[in-house]
């Protein structure tokens, strides 16, 4: 294993997240009740996705400046793992939503029509679809240099669209998601309980390190493949 101190930190933080996340005290809130613990898992997926996409766009810009193919590989792999975390965040969100937002007198299937209009859901879906298109675009261009250049530009475009789709529009429209029209969910100091912050911040770091770890493995594999092609 290479440079392993942050990997050990990742393991410790994730174990702490799972143990502390289930056993430590949380505020007693109606409708949410114990599902509030999803904050340590569902929200961290989005944090991890956002950080990975940010790293990806940084490498895309680096590629445009340097024209080195390794930067392109880095950019692609960070985006790919970011998509995985985004899909996980979306899927966990739908489960959580169908138990907390749905009308208790109506089954979640019947109140689906109301819940599906949620701007945060639609925005996140659009953002993920734009990144799916990034992957499709990559695979549709066979020339390596052309592919790297075009997808680097597209990556900047996709990253720019993340902000209106998941940060701005859901906050302008009325939304059931926390932090709808009044600020920042989870990070607002008035919004989150101090006891939860003890687990929440380490959880963000742990999940992000896990994402970076997986990405680093993918990058090393594709660099090996690249070397084999050159020889």
């Amino acid at each position, binding site marked *: 294993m290479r440079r392993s101190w942050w990997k050990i930190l990742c393991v410790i933080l994730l*174990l702490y997240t799972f*143990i502390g996340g*289930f056993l430590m005290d949380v505020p007693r*809130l*109606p409708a*949410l*009740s114990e599902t509030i613990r999803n904050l340590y898992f569902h929200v961290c997926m989005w944090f991890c996705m956002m950080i990975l996409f940010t790293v990806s766009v940084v490498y895309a810009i680096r590629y445009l400046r340097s024209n080195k193919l390794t930067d392109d590989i880095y950019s692609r792999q960070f985006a790919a793992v970011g998509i995985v975390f985004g899909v996980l965040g979306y899927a966990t969100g739908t489960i959580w939503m169908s138990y907390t937002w749905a009308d208790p007198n109506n089954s979640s299937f019947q109140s689906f029509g109301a819940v599906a209009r949620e701007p945060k859901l639609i925005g996140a879906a659009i953002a993920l679809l734009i990144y799916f298109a990034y992957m499709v675009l990559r695979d549709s261009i066979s020339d390596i240099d052309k592919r790297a250049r075009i997808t680097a530009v597209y990556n900047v475009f996709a990253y720019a669209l993340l902000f209106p789709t998941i940060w701005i529009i859901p906050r302008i429209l009325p939304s059931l998601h926390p932090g709808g029209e009044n600020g920042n969910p989870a990070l607002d100091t008035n919004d989150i309980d101090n006891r939860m912050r003890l687990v929440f911040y380490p959880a963000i770091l742990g999940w992000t390190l896990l994402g970076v*770890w*997986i990405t680093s493995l993918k990058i*090393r594999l594709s660099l090996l493949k690249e070397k084999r092609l050159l020889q």
Partner: protein
Amino acid sequence: MRKVKYLSTFIISLLSTLINYAQTDKAEMADTMRSNGRIYVVVAVVVLILSGLLLYLVRLDKKITRIEKNKS
């Protein structure tokens, strides 16, 4: 006089619904699960799955390192 009576009953009923609401407002938490210790079973299962996945990741990491060393 009758108006006042109606108004007062209305206000009292409104207040009582408010009080009722406050009473049903208590969140249902999994307190029994905590008191009989079954929550530790859940934690054990989840931690085992997590450590299994992390071990798998460590093994992958080592394998890739070995391939990198053979190459260069």
